[in-house]
């Protein structure tokens, strides 16, 4: 499904500030797999996701999605196959455009933008149905600008938009990190429902170890641009947060302070 080979990414390459954000990362993700990625700040989680989505093209290595080498594809072209939800709730929607306009943009993900109507009556009905499942009353507010919604509402809407056209791969970049715990729980539950329903191949970054243990079938820990731990569903079910911290220290004896409070407490 997703095959990554020898992926490296540098920032400020050739200067004194050079940082290697990814160090020859290899990763295989099977169809329908839900993978959680954890790691401290600067571990390379977001860079990995940005390399896959095309937002930050890698310097070395190959990315193969569903048998197609997409390494050289620009970000907008990859979007045909990849659905994304960002950490910042403001990033996933256009505040000045209405809910239905935002959804119509998402419904055309990866398609040519023609001179046909931007939103049709038929689509409006479909959006209303889709929004009903959120149980937030948004189906009655199709004409409201997305900017009127709360962070949680906008993130839920972004999630629906990312999956309105079934993506080959769903990328979630700490998409609940900016929300309060209760809202984060609701958005996480919605995520699980949508992923299971559509059997979506999903990569989710999280800072929260509990969340990483509770969701998904596979857990990857990154540190300094490398994948240092990779637990299968079976191994993962036996893990506790304490185990994770232990594993983390075992892999990095030299960096006792590498685990931040945020990583543990989320």
């Amino acid at each position, binding site marked *: 499904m997703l095959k990554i080979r020898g992926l490296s990414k540098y920032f400020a390459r050739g200067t004194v500030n050079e940082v290697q954000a990814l160090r020859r990362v290899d990763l295989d993700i099977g169809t329908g797999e839900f993978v959680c990625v954890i790691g401290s700040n600067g571990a390379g989680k977001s860079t990995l996701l940005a390399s896959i989505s095309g937002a930050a093209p890698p310097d070395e290595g190959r990315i193969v999605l569903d048998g197609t080498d997409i390494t050289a594809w620009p970000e*907008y072209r990859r979007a045909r196959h990849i659905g*994304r939800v*960002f950490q910042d709730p403001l*990033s996933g929607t256009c505040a000045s*455009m209405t809910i239905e306009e935002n959804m119509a943009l998402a419904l055309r993900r990866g*398609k040519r*933008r*023609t*001179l046909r109507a*931007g939103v049709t009556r038929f689509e409006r009905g479909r959006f209303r149905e889709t929004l009903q499942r959120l149980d937030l009353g948004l189906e009655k507010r199709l004409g409201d600008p997305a900017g009127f919604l709360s962070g949680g509402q906008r993130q839920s809407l972004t999630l629906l938009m990312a999956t309105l056209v079934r993506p080959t791969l769903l990328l979630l970049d700490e998409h609940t990190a900016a929300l309060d715990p209760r809202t984060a729980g609701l958005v996480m539950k919605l995520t699980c429902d949508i992923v299971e329903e559509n059997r979506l191949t999903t990569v989710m970054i999280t800072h929260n170890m509990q969340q990483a243990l509770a969701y998904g079938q596979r857990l990857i820990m990154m540190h300094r641009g490398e994948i240092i731990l990779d637990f299968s569903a079976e191994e993962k079910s036996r893990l506790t947060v304490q185990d994770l911290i232990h594993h983390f220290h075992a892999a990095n004896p030299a960096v006792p302070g590498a685990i931040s409070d945020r990583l543990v407490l989320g």
Partner: protein
Amino acid sequence: MSLYAFSGAIELGLVYGLMALGVYITFRVLDFPDLTVDGSLTLGAAVTAVCITKGLNPFLALVPAMAAGFLAGTVTGFLTTKLRILHLLSSILTMTALYSVNIRVMGGRPNIALLGRPTVFDPIRALDVSPYLVSNILFLALVAAVVAALVWLIRTEYGQALLATGANPKMITSLGVNTHFTVITGVGISNALVALSGGLIAQNQGTADVGMGVGTIVAGLASIVVGETIFNSRRITTIVISVVLGSVIYRLAIAAALSFRVAGHSFEASDLKLLTTVLVVASLVLPRVRKSLRARSGAAARNGRP
């Protein structure tokens, strides 16, 4: 204000309204402050004038003018997207280059006179209407057509992608839109409208002049902010119409300022650019001042209560 001055102001408001609609596409839809318009207005006028002197039908002469404007816009779009030059600077570069291009287009001369040549106003003049109304009738019809076309365009899939490109490029890229394409074509369409405006202005005043585009962007911005301030709306039809009405009101205000006379002092036509700049600065700053005043008075009210 005389009837002549009044009808003249409406006339200018309408024809420059087409330019303001172009500026609206870049400034508000794409969030792209585009100074190319200072050059592309003149370009439209120059191309139209040359085509007419070469014997082309004055209506048809507007087509190559719009094409030239579109091309100028795509150059700015290319500079900013593919060559990654800051958008404002890209447009300044194109505008500067257009000064030379415009003189080339006019065969090395700084202006071309169109007196005695056929114009788009001839068919209406033949209808034997009041001379005050001739230009207004044509401009009104054209503005109505362009407003309708623009509203339609913004409601298409492409237009929605344009709006999203200005509002949230990260999001629209993640939804599969090539923002380089939307920026380049969007700035192109904007400058095509500005060039159309320039072509009509040249025919209306009977001359194309290399200096006629100076300050176009500021007049366009003034029209947009005046329209927004008066007709505060979120409906796209109302917004687009308010840009044209903003342009008309702006020209009327100028005509009023010119007829204003206090103790022997009055404004000269050459003072207008200064006045317009003050107007634009005021309308850009006023909403913020109003907001902070409201916040302060709100805080005072709260503090006043025990």
